[in-house]
């Protein structure tokens, strides 16, 4: 741990992403600067088409910027070959996809253990860690259930368990509460919050203010630019109002 201050886990430096070329080019992101430190929970809010999902895809190494740099634990992603990038993503980055991206023919525990096994973790150890992650999202009893035997909400929890398994340092989540009712959505926020409190860097993309409010910092994005941010004051005085 650096003594100079908070440890940067994710850094986006002047990141731009343009789709298409010439007159029809569309700029999804324009020179975005953003860092997420260890132990910090950042939410990105914006209307559809504002660039928030593009931002997350770049942070997770699923896409490459047109210009600018993406750094995970100070490693520039641009300098990595495909294999090294895949390894970094398996070890350091957990990604919760909007549409889950689970393997339908595997059980919940097998899905969660998959990134660990691909990374060479012995099967039994991977299974133990997978069940532990499933416990954190509240469904340890469904470890042996196949995906097509699970509800949308249960599948979403498996997807979150897969993102947090093995103490990943950076957790990225794209609208992870979309398929869930509000009580379950609350549970998902508790999991993300507790990962951040345990030292992970967490970035959540959402259009739900109620969920964004769990973050330490809420970044507002419009037309591919960060236009403002809200930082919790955690000041009890804010709750006080004059009597009528």
């Amino acid at each position: 741990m650096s003594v100079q201050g908070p440890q940067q886990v994710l850094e986006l430096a002047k990141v731009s992403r343009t789709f298409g070329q010439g007159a029809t080019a569309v700029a999804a992101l324009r020179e975005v600067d953003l860092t997420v430190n260890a132990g910090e929970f950042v939410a990105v809010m914006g209307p559809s088409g504002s660039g928030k999902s593009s931002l997350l895809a770049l942070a997770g190494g699923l896409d490459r910027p047109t210009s600018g740099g993406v750094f995970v634990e100070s490693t520039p992603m641009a300098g990595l070959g495909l294999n090294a990038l895949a390894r970094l993503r398996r070890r350091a980055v957990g990604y919760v996809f909007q549409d889950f991206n689970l393997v339908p023919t595997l059980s919940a525990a097998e899905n969660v253990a998959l990134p660990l096994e691909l990374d060479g973790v012995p099967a039994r150890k991977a299974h133990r860690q997978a069940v532990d992650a499933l416990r954190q999202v509240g469904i340890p009893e469904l470890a042996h259930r196949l995906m097509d035997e699970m509800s949308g909400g249960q599948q979403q929890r498996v997807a979150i368990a897969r993102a947090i398994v093995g103490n990943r340092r950076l957790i990225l989540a794209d609208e992870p509460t979309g398929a869930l009712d509000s009580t379950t959505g609350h549970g998902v926020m508790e999991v993300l919050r507790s990962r951040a409190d345990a030292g992970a860097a967490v970035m959540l993309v959402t259009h739900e203010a109620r969920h964004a409010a769990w973050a330490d910092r809420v970044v507002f994005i419009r037309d591919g630019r960060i236009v403002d941010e809200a930082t919790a004051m955690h000041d009890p005085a804010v709750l006080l109002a004059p009597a009528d």
Partner: protein
Amino acid sequence: MSIRHSLLALLQDQPRYGYQLRVEFEDRTGSTWPLNIGQVYTTLDRLDRDGLVSNDGGDGEGHVVYSITEAGRAEVQGWFATPVERSNPPRNELAIKLALAVTLPGVDVAAIIQAQRTASMRALQDYTKSRRDTAANQRAADTAWLLVLDSLIFQTEAEIRWLDLCEARMLQLAQASGARSHVRKPSNGVTVEEATPLTAENRR
């Protein structure tokens, strides 16, 4: 907020003196709406005058103790049984501000909306944090406070959703008229600095 009915409801529980009533009220509502002790005494005087409470005299330690009368009990029952009246429609400074902003020339509406969104989000973050902390070490007395916090969270969330809708509508209007400058133009009238967002302190 009906202080009158709140005090009556607390007296229904047991006879109390003014300072006790204030402490009980604030404890059950998490001090969200602090009571002025002078206000408590004036209200008790009026309740006494109207025959809803009776002055039981001193408790020997300099406190004047009040208890509820039959008429007072009926009043409390009526209060609980009646839905809260919506002042018609409730005065909403934010809605008034935006209604004026969109109809006056030279006002940067997008900037006003964003400044308010940031302020509301900050309040929502604080309410959410308080709720989490309270729920984590919940005492029996916290149930009432959690309900108050939930109410504040829902109100603030509704405010932010409404701001999002306002922004989307403004954008649609601007695109329809082909005059994006109407929304995006740097302000030459009201600026963000002048447009003080509603904060938790001044939102009620």
